[in-house]
């Protein structure tokens, strides 16, 4: 398996994939024209032909027999070409000596504060391949790409995670807040955003802060919570250095996780190494899973490999060389696949 930039020839595979995606993935519409346009745009992005703020790095995950089974994306900088909206979850504290009271109120403030950050987006893996290493490769490969090409991205990454909704797609946060302002259903709003029509957000979202005391209990409880299906993704990102910094999605209140580039685990762990092979297999006790990137931009390939590193040489097996289309002696970017040192949690 490997991850590589999307190509025009992937269109049919992606159409097939998108048919398997549920409502959760708004950014992968099963509309041929739209998807073709997106692929075309991504190809230009990888070639460096994008204007900063319009770059859309779209990758596919393919099996060793070249079957496309997943995709993931990276926007170079959001909010540059069009405003990017979140609520910021803030606190208002009031106190009165006369009353002997100090009162905390949570408020949601219209925010464009994520402007200029790079966004992780459009992750989708064929359900038949979930549970194994494929998901980790798909999700982390783009982080290694960022670590390898930091100059192409903002100084911080952000990932908006899917918020709480029930089986019928009903979002308690939307029912309690968005509905009053947008005059449409959650799925309509989500769909409009997915097809890139975001003007209506600026036009209709509340300009003044919202006191959460006016939301339903269910809606308040949904603030910054992820959908049960997304909890794994959240944990994975947190291990890579992402954290919740009080920004949420304006529709379903899902958390926006952020990570300054200089705190991205892969930025700190990435090293340039030379590829080599060992006699026989590298499945020794010294080997550990690595994430490896070879090539630049539109020519890049990324894969995971059981490997071991010594003196700036990464020892891999022949399959890995094949996946990376590399000969030994090639210099590549590599980092351990797993976050070795988890941040200690202090309660």
């Amino acid at each position, binding site marked *: 398996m490997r991850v590589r930039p999307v190509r025009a020839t992937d269109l049919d595979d992606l159409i097939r994939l998108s048919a398997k995606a549920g409502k959760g993935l708004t950014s992968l519409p099963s509309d041929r024209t739209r998807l073709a346009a997106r692929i075309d745009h991504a190809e230009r992005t990888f070639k460096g032909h994008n204007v900063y703020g319009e770059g859309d790095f779209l990758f596919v995950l393919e099996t060793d027999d070249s079957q496309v089974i997943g995709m993931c994306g990276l926007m170079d900088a959001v909010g540059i070409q069009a405003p990017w909206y979140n609520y910021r979850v803030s606190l*208002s504290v*009031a*106190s*009165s*000596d*006369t*009353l002997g*009271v*100090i*009162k905390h*109120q949570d*408020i949601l403030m219209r925010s464009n504060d994520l402007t200029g950050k790079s966004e992780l987006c459009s992750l989708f893996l064929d359900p038949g391949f979930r549970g194994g290493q494929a998901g980790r490769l798909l999700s982390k490969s783009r982080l290694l790409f960022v670590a390898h090409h930091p100059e192409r991205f903002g100084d911080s990454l952000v990932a908006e995670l899917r918020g709480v909704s029930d089986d019928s797609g009903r979002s308690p946060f939307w029912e309690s*807040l968005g509905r*009053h*302002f*947008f*005059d*449409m259903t959650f799925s309509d709003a989500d769909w409009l955003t997915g097809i890139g*029509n975001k*003007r*209506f957000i600026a*036009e*209709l*979202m*509340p*300009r*003044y*802060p*919202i*006191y959460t*005391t*006016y*939301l339903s209990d269910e809606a308040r409880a949904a603030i910054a919570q992820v959908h049960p299906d997304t909890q794994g993704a959240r944990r994975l990102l947190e291990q890579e250095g992402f954290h919740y910094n009080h920004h949420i999605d304006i529709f379903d209140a899902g958390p926006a996780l952020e990570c300054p580039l200089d705190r991205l685990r892969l930025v700190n762990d990435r090293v340039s190494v030379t590829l080599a092979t060992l006699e026989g297999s590298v499945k020794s006790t010294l080997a550990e899973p690595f994430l490896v990137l070879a090539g630049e931009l539109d020519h890049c390939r990324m894969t995971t490999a059981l490997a071991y590193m010594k003196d700036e040489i990464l020892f891999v097996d022949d399959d890995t060389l094949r996946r990376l289309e590399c000969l030994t002696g090639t210099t590549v970017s590599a980092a351990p696949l797993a976050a070795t040192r988890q941040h200690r949690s202090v309660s």
Partner: protein
Amino acid sequence: MPVVRTATFDDRPRLDALRSRLHPWWPQDTLDDALCQLADPCADARETPKSGHAVILMIENTHGDIVAFAALALGAVEGTPPFFSFHRDRITSHSHALDVHRPLETLGITNALTHHIRLGPIGLFDTADVETTQLLAAGCLGYLLTANHARAPVLCELPGTSDAHGESPFWHGVGGRFFGVSHARAEALWQARQRDFLADMLPLYPLYVPLLPETTQAALGVEHETLTPWRHALEALGFVESEYLDIFHGGPTLIATADHLSARTRRTQATTSPPPGSLWVRPPSATTPFEAGLLDTDQDTAFEPDALIQYFEAPYPTSASSAGDCR
């Protein structure tokens, strides 16, 4: 015909006794001020008002019982402490692409009414008595038209509506969420003029009306039902419902500019016979308080001009005057 007159210090015990019968949501600070300032009958209503300057106008029945009174705070001067209201505003959100128009009401805190003259509390002990209600309102009007106060606008904040349990749906939806104390405690502190807590605790940002509980929304600008006749009397005099609400109960704030009040009621020359229903006003003299009344609409007694009395044309539509008041 009954008259309305300014209260004097001799009236104080009777007025004090009537306080308990006032609606508990009337702000009583003006009444307190006015009771403390009760003076000679001949106190000059035309003195320059200062902060806290307040008077009481009252009506007695033929038995000499006080059947109605109103307090007026005239201290519309610089240095008056801020007066808090909710301002009911509207922002329309409009999506061209989606063809959506949503006029959204908001409630924001304002001190814009700080320098207004304040009318209230009023005590009307038989709310079905339209004649007394109208006389009280007309008497206040006459006082305002002739007293030498600064010509500031006049406001009357009416206590808001209550639910079946006597509680305020507006307090439930607004004050109760921000003050962190009971309604009774907040009221008591306000009446005791410990009001710093308003600026401290009231919401910083405008609230969206569609997010408020439905019972709260339904209470916006609705006066307590016992005060509807009083509201109608004020509206007949040129008061209009403003976009301001009482901060505790969401009752309406009726406002009239001095200009509009005088436009509604035109002074007539005392040499000609004023039409029935006209308002007459006698300024205070060395021995008598300010007095005002409405000329009987039916009576046929001959008109006796009095140089001290000023007449204003009918503030209320009467059968006789309605022809001249149609629009």
